[in-house]
């Protein structure tokens, strides 16, 4: 089995494809997923899902989250099939204690980690062939009640920086910090169960750089690279193990 990044396995016709390469960096590759309504894409995506995933689709109460799950999960399957050189039928997922999907081929774990995030019409899928990875995306739009959250989710230096900003720069910085922290928490597999106020984005990022190294022995023994991968439409971050030990935990 190869873990290289190779072409397209023809699971979906090229003109229908709703995912494209977005960022490559070290051991990771991030794909951007278009989540706007499209019946042709949704039908092609449905064909890639297994029975449990189709049941999950049926449980969603509204079309938008159903479409987000459907198009992201199918794109995740397609890029994993290419990266792992396997058939879609061989690919299944198990879930870590708090629900992070872990890919299996023929029922076995593989040397590939993945993570997914969606917000509005934007989705991201991140793959890493060397250690755990987490990704988070948020649409860049104003939201209600964010000010009330600052105390709960940010550390002292993050709060001090936000206190000097207003308007769009405040929102952009809030979303950069939030997506950075959520990408880390998703890389660890903890999601919201991590108290976000007990750690901060790396010092380089507090100084305005787009990437930095996260070390916090109180929370994790590994060293993590955090990258701001946002653009005009979306705030986003990816976190991955810089130097995973043998095996890398899930």
């Amino acid at each position: 089995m190869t873990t290289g990044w190779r072409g397209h396995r023809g699971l979906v016709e090229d003109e229908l494809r709703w995912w494209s390469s977005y960022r490559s960096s070290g051991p990771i590759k991030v794909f951007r997923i278009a989540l706007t309504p499209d019946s042709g894409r949704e039908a092609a995506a449905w064909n890639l899902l297994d029975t449990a995933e189709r049941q999950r689709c049926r449980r969603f109460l509204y079309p938008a989250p159903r479409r987000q799950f459907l198009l992201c999960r199918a794109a995740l399957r397609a890029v994993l099939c290419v990266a792992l050189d396997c058939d879609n039928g061989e690919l299944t997922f198990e879930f870590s204690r708090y629900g992070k999907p872990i890919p299996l081929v023929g029922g076995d774990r593989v040397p590939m980690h993945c993570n997914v995030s969606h917000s509005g019409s934007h989705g991201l899928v991140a793959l890493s062939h060397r250690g755990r990875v987490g990704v988070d995306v948020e649409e860049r739009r104003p939201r209600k009640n964010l000010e009330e959250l600052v105390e709960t989710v940010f550390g002292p230096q993050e709060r001090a920086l936000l206190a000097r900003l207003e308007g769009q720069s405040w929102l952009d910085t809030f979303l950069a910090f939030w997506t950075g922290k959520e990408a880390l928490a998703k890389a660890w597999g903890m999601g919201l169960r991590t108290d976000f106020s007990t750690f901060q984005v790396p010092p380089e990022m507090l100084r305005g750089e787009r990437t930095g190294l996260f070390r916090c022995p109180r929370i994790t023994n590994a060293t993590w690279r955090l990258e701001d991968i946002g653009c005009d439409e979306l705030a986003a971050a990816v976190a991955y193990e810089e130097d995973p030990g043998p095996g890398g935990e899930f």
Partner: protein
Amino acid sequence: MSSTEERIRALVDENLEIEGRPPGRPLDLDSSLRDSGVSSLDFVAFAKLVAQEFGVDVSMEECASINSVGELVEFLDAKAA
């Protein structure tokens, strides 16, 4: 309907963005937040607002253990008790 439930329903209508929810449709308190498509950022912001309105504190860990608006009502009632 408990008074907590009534207040939360009003706060949901005003503050919680649920993409695609038909306007005016009463909220099913037991529906899972994930199945309704509520994102973690929107939910934590909403839970914080509600906690402030009710004069209680809510941690991130507590937010992560709440899976529906009904569970949020129970959480607040338990804190007030």
